[in-house]
Structure formats: C-alpha cells, structure tokens
C-alpha cells in the first residue's frame, strides 16, 4: 500500500492549481480525466507528475465532452473521479454534467474561470457563474463551491468529493485564473487527521447478485418515454435537493447586524470585499460583509435575513451581474436596494470597492 501523500500538517507555498492536485490526492481521488485549457492546465500536470508514486490514474481525452463523459464513466465504475476545465471547456462540459444530474452521479469538476464569451482571455473572470450553477438543459441539480483562498481550494476540493458522494449530486469547485496562478501559503493535511472521513464510493454497475432477485435492479436513465415518468423522477430529485440544500449551503459574514450597506461578493473578489469592509468600518461607515460560499444552493435564509435588515446591497463581481441575478432571486420581495459594481472579466481591487461605497454614501 502506497504511503499517504501528506503526513502531518504541512505549511506550503504554491499555486492554486498545484493545491488542487494535492487536495485530490489527499482526498483519495482514484482518477482524473481531462483536456488541457488555460488557466487550469497545471492541475493535470501536477496530478500526472505525482500519481505514479500513489497508484492513481489519469486519462487525457480528445476534448471536454469526452473528459466529462469519461468522468461519468469512472463514477459509474465506483471510482472517486474528477476533471478540471475552464471557459469554452466548461461550455462543452455542461452536456456530460447534465447526464450526471439525470443519473445523480457524484462527479467532481474543478472550474478555473477565464474571460468570456468564447475564447476571450486565458486570464481571469467570474463569468462562469451562471453556467456552472445552472448549465445544462435541466434544473441545476448540483452543488457549487466558490473558493477565495488557497486554504479553501484545498479544503473544498476534499469536501467536494464527500458532498458529491453523500448527496449524489455533481459537485463543482469554482475557482478562477487568479486563484489558479497565484502563490500563497496554506496548510495541507491528511483528511483523517482532522477527523474528516472520506465518504465511501461504490460502483453503480457490475454489482454482484441477480438483479431483482438478490438485489434491487440498477436504474440508470437519462431518457424517458412519457412526460409523467420524467416528472415523477424529477419530483423526487427536487425534493432531495430541497432537503439537502440547507445542510450544504455555506456562507461567511460579519458586521451585518447594524449595517446600512452590505457588500455582497464571492470567490476571489470577496477578498477585496472583506478588506474594503474592514477599512470602511474603521473609517466609521456602517457597512457589512456577506459572501456566499455555495453559489448553488445559495444560503437563502441567511441572505434574506440580511436583506430584511440592511438598506442597500452592493453586489461586487468580475461579471456583468451573474451573482447579482442569483442574489435578486433569493431575496425577492425583501426591501433592500440592489447596487452594482460589475467589472466583467477584470479583477477588482480593495481600493475600488472602498471608492464605490464612499461614492454611494457620499
């Protein structure tokens, strides 16, 4: 048996892509399927460099459609399987992920957002929120974690496998080109040392025994003949999702109790949001900070609670209102005024958030 990849707690300094490869190793992922696209390439580079020692596998496919479907296949065979992509690759990935939603398959996908639409830039954006949360021709039966730091990239990549296998919904780790390429410190650990037990995997096909005699038959369907048949299945899925949502939803917030204006942001932009709110508080502004960590499902109850207290939400994102749309839906009917700071495909600095709040507050 190969030794554990991480022994004890280990402070390291590396790029986000390298962090994800280590986290997948530590989570006991069996196999990665992938097709290269910037800015996530180094995930597979590091993965393939490290895996011979730990007896894991990698398959490079001909495109992202295939990478997604082979990940689906790996999960059907009971493997803790994942893939990673970005931008136009994420677009192609939605077709196989829609199948994973139809069959309730616990695939894990890491997305490092780049500029869009189309090839656009290889650098950075938060423009893949709508597609990652709601992509595919269905209801968005999936989980999306939006990370902000390298520590979170590590923690949530491990967690994504467990959420996926526990609830049997496809699970995404939504990063971006900045997180992919920047270097900062984090602490790596073996999940077991922190009391994190990896949820056991099992094959969907090729189980022992006679179906219908020794065990229930396995139904794996993404096609239905009549409307009612599909409706019955989806009702159950939607009920499962609604039940799981409050358990899965996560957020981070501070200074919201007496805040007149709350800065809403996610992912790497929330680092600017956080620093700006701290700075503005010191300057006497009544501002708060709220950051959904899960973009799907959103922490709806907590968001509404804040939206019923604060006068204004300033939604800050490197997209033209993709988070904003989700937040508006979640807070429908709340009396809060929604204000934008949108910079599609461009990074947002602390200084810009501070300046925008001062402009609003006069």
């Amino acid at each position: 048996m190969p030794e554990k990849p991480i022994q004890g707690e280990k402070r390291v300094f590396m790029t986000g892509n390298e962090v994800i490869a280590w986290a997948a190793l530590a989570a006991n992922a069996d196999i990665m399927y992938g097709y290269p696209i910037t800015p996530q390439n180094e995930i597979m580079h590091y993965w393939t460099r490290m895996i011979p020692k730990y007896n894991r596998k990698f398959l490079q496919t001909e495109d992202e459609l295939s990478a997604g479907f082979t990940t689906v296949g790996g999960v059907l065979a009971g493997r803790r399987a994942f893939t990673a992509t970005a931008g136009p690759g994420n677009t192609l990935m939605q077709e196989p992920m829609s199948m994973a939603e139809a069959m309730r398959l616990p695939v894990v996908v890491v997305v490092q957002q780049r500029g869009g639409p189309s090839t656009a830039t290889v650098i950075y954006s938060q423009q893949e929120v709508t597609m990652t949360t709601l992509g595919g021709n269905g209801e968005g039966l999936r989980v999306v974690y939006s990370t902000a730091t390298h520590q979170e990239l590590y923690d949530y990549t491990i967690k994504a496998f467990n959420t996926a296998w526990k609830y049997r919904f496809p699970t995404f780790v939504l990063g971006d080109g900045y997180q992919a390429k920047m270097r900062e410190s984090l602490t790596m650990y073996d999940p077991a040392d922190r009391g994190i037990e990896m949820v056991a995997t099992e094959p969907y096909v090729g189980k022992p025994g006679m179906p219908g005699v020794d065990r229930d038959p396995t139904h794996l369907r993404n096609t239905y003949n009549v409307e009612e048949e599909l409706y019955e299945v989806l009702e159950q899925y939607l009920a499962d999702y609604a039940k799981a949502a409050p358990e899965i939803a996560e957020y981070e917030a501070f200074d919201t109790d007496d805040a007149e204006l709350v800065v809403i942001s996610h992912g790497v932009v929330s680092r600017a949001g956080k620093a700006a709110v701290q700075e503005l508080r010191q300057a006497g502004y009544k501002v708060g900070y709220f950051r959904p960590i899960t973009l799907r499902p959103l922490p709806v109850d907590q968001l509404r609670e804040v939206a019923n207290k604060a006068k204004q939400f300033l939604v800050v994102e490197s997209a033209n209102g993709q988070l904003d749309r989700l937040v508006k839906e979640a807070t429908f009917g709340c009396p809060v005024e929604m204000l934008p700071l949108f910079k599609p495909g461009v990074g947002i600095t602390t200084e810009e958030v501070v300046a925008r709040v001062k402009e609003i507050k006069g």
Partner: protein
Amino acid sequence: MAKPVKIILAGEGGQGVQSVAEIIAEAANEEGREALYIPNFGVEQRGGVSVAYLQIGDEPIGAPKFQIGDIVVALSDRAVHRTKQYVGPETIFVYDTNIEGIEDDLPRNAKKVLGIPAIDVSKKELHPRVFNIIIMGAVIKATEVVAVEDAKQAIEKKLGYKFEKNPKLRDMNFRAIERGMELVASIL
C-alpha cells in the same frame, strides 16, 4: 491592521521579473510571513511587458492585485509606460538608468524616483544573466521585506541544482544581490 508592502515588478519577457517576485515571496514565506505573488499571464508572456504583483505582510493578504504600489520597478521603456498607473504619492519608483528616451515619461507624482545602473553593472561587473538578481537586491534594500540571508536561501532553493554543477554561479548570484542592495543604498 498593518497593511502589507505592495510591490510591482515590470520588464520585458526574459528579464526575469517573475522569478524575482517568486523568490522574494518564497523567502518571506520561509520567514513565516504572509506573501502573495501573482504574475500576469496573458499573451504578454509571449512578447510584451511582464508584470509581477507581490504583497508581503503579517496577516493574510487581501485582493491579489492592487492599484498603487509601495515600490514599483520598471526595467524597460515599455515597462515605464505600463507601470505609471501604479504610482501614487507614497510610491518609490525604481528604473534602470540604461533605458533610453524615458526621461520625460518618468512619473512625477512619486515619493521618490530612483535610477540605478543595474543593466550596466550586470554587463560590466558580473554577467547579464544575473541582472534580475541585482534588481532583487535593490527591491530588498528599498523595502526591507525580507532579510538578505533568507533571500539567499530562497535563491539556493530555486537554483541549487545549478550551483551544484557550477559553484561559481552561486558566488555570482550572491554578489549580484549585494550589488543591487549597494546601488539602492547609495542613492536612498
């Protein structure tokens, strides 16, 4: 809350600004401090101005990029133009005196503008390949973000395999970092 020191390094592809930023970041991390380094990695990598954003502090770093640097280093004429936007009244702006035709383009709103002859020194005294290490010495002296010994250790970590084969390279790199520090010390 003490703010981190914010550093911009900009030059032509191949001048080694990304390596310098990475080594300083590694050195700061080894000292147990918080560091965040992010390169630009668009098509500039393949024939444009290469910019490195580096922040070092004692608390977790906020947004990876920023608008105004505490120290901004520009190593080519195009880099001077590109980095003027990062200069504010508290900024120390460092450029190489070998760059021609930029006298009128140097920022006027900086706290200090320091010209250092790093390109000349690397060519005449050392070797052009350690030009970026001279710059590293200059940055360390101007900001005091890491101790020179830790910077040397970080260089050793990154280039040690080359030094094994050719120990003279180690001496040259270490002399380069010290020369860089001297160049800044003489005009600060």
